[in-house]
């Protein structure tokens, strides 16, 4: 597309502003995590790793990180299994209510987190509590899984839509039974979509806060929740910066990998 010169300049400035709004604050967090001034004075009077060391020794932050990892991995695992199964069902089989199912699976990502949170909270308390299962890590995992399923589902179904069913038919035609076909042909062809979906799901879970607040029991704190409750304390501000920086890094990596994986396969030849 050819743009006139003024238009080109305008577009560039708009793009630069957009990126600045998103990324300058993130950069500030990173810089402030190295800022020796406890109240994040500007410009930073020097460079220090004290806060990183403090954060490392802060049992609250470490516990929260651990909880977040467990929640993320748990939710991702559930999402991978259920999301993949539903995607296969919707893509490969015709059945009554197929459209409805795929709509219902995708819906949670569009619902406001607070609605999902409140709804799950009520549901868990009325269904699980009588069974002796209180709110805790388990309920957080289930809560996160509701929206993690969506990204796995979307990734897998997009791959299946682009993949002609004749690959699997060819395998069966050559004598491979159903399971063998899945192992030799279907799985290798959807693997990168699964990994991409899983990484995105993990990233989603890792920085989720609203649903977590409603589904976590008293003693359970994920990293974002920990940050949120410590932000107001000036004493903790530098450590919060460090944790936030870690959170940024940990979310960027999976998303970067997921993008590379899906663009790899979008070009078709290498799956």
């Amino acid at each position, binding site marked *: 597309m050819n743009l006139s010169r003024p238009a080109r300049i305008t577009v560039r400035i708009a793009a630069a502003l957009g990126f600045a709004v998103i990324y300058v604050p993130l950069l500030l967090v990173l810089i402030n995590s190295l800022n020796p001034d406890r109240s994040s004075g500007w410009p930073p009077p020097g460079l220090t790793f004290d806060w990183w060391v403090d954060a490392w020794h802060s049992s609250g932050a470490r516990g929260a990180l651990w909880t977040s990892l467990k929640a993320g991995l748990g939710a991702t695992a559930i999402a991978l299994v259920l999301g993949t199964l539903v995607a296969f069902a919707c893509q490969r089989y015709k059945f009554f209510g197929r459209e409805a199912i795929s709509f219902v699976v995708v819906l949670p990502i569009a619902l406001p987190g607070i609605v999902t949170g409140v709804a799950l909270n009520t549901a868990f308390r009325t269904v699980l509590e009588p069974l002796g299962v209180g709110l805790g890590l388990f309920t957080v995992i289930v809560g996160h899984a509701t929206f993690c399923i969506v990204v796995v589902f979307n990734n897998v179904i997009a791959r299946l839509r682009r993949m002609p069913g*004749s690959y699997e038919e060819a395998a069966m035609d050559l004598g*491979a039974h159903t399971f063998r076909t899945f192992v030799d042909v279907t799985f290798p062809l959807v693997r990168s979509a699964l990994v991409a979906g899983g990484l995105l799901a993990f990233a989603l879970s890792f920085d989720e806060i609203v649903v977590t607040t409603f589904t976590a029991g008293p003693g359970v704190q994920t990293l974002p929740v920990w940050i949120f409750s410590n932000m107001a304390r000036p004493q903790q501000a530098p450590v919060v910066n460090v944790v936030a920086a870690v959170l940024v890094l940990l979310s960027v990596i999976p998303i970067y990998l997921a993008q590379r994986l899906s663009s790899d396969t979008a070009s078709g030849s290498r799956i």
Partner: protein
Amino acid sequence: MEGMAIRLQNLRKTFGRTEAVAGVELEIADGEFFSMLGPSGSGKTTVLRMIAGFEAPTSGTVELAGSDVTRLAPFERDVHTVFQDYALFPHMTVEQNVAYGLKVRKVPKPERLKQAREALASVRLADFGTRRPSQLSGGQRQRVALARALVGRPKVLLLDEPLGALDLKLREQMQVELKAIQREVGITFVFVTHDQEEALTMSDRIAVFNQGRVEQVGTPAQIYERPATPFVAGFVGTSNLLTDDAAEQVVGDRATYSIRPEKIRVLKESALADEPRHSRATGTVAEVVYLGDATRFLVDLDAGGRLTALQQNLETSSEDVAAFRGSRVTLQWHQRHNFRVPGTR
């Protein structure tokens, strides 16, 4: 039954309200090159998929080598398919693709590599084993698909318009090669096409499909010279029919007659009716099409209707040919080429 590779009995398949296959009866002999010819949507692919086991018939039975396989899965049938889109596994090399069927059947690795290489050599792709399917041309992919399906020596090979995606030259070359391979390995080929020329040149026998039914089964000559139904007469070759009044005047019988264009001679109007047992009709040349090796004349008959006549260009050139347009001619052909289409008045 002895010598029968495939037997289809009263085979039906409905998708929702569409009746894709509406009662097909076919017997295909061992070692035969059998084509299924028909217009788009006539149910050829669906029949093929029921033979391979990808589609379960709504009713009817599929027999392979005398045993009923109607309820068996694709991997339980001794049939391999060459898919229209080839369906080569993109994550495997050419060699792995070809060896896959052997691997599944637990043929030891050295043996299956040897067989895969031989199969690749037989389709002249010996040096392409380590490539990915995406690094091959259309014609090469097609040959890999063929090698993959042939390597396990199935009793029956099903081919669904395997030459559809190729350009004319490669297509003709592959037709010759396919036929040679079939003769060599002696496997039964069931070949789906909607290209009548392809079917006529390659097949031992042809089944002409129309709207989920088989209209006629026969050798290429039978199908071409003696179409069993008006549909076959119209679909195979150029539709060249004399009907009603024209048939009455020219042939002397009020029915539908089919005359093959190459049997008709184009003469000057004044030519004398000296040859016995010939049908003659006068008319005006409406259109002349120069085809290089031949010329096609479309003649509006005085008796009504239009006939196409095909003349070899033995002496004529393109300039001479154009002069015929609008001129008066007499068409003449031997009476034995008047073929009365069955099922007509």
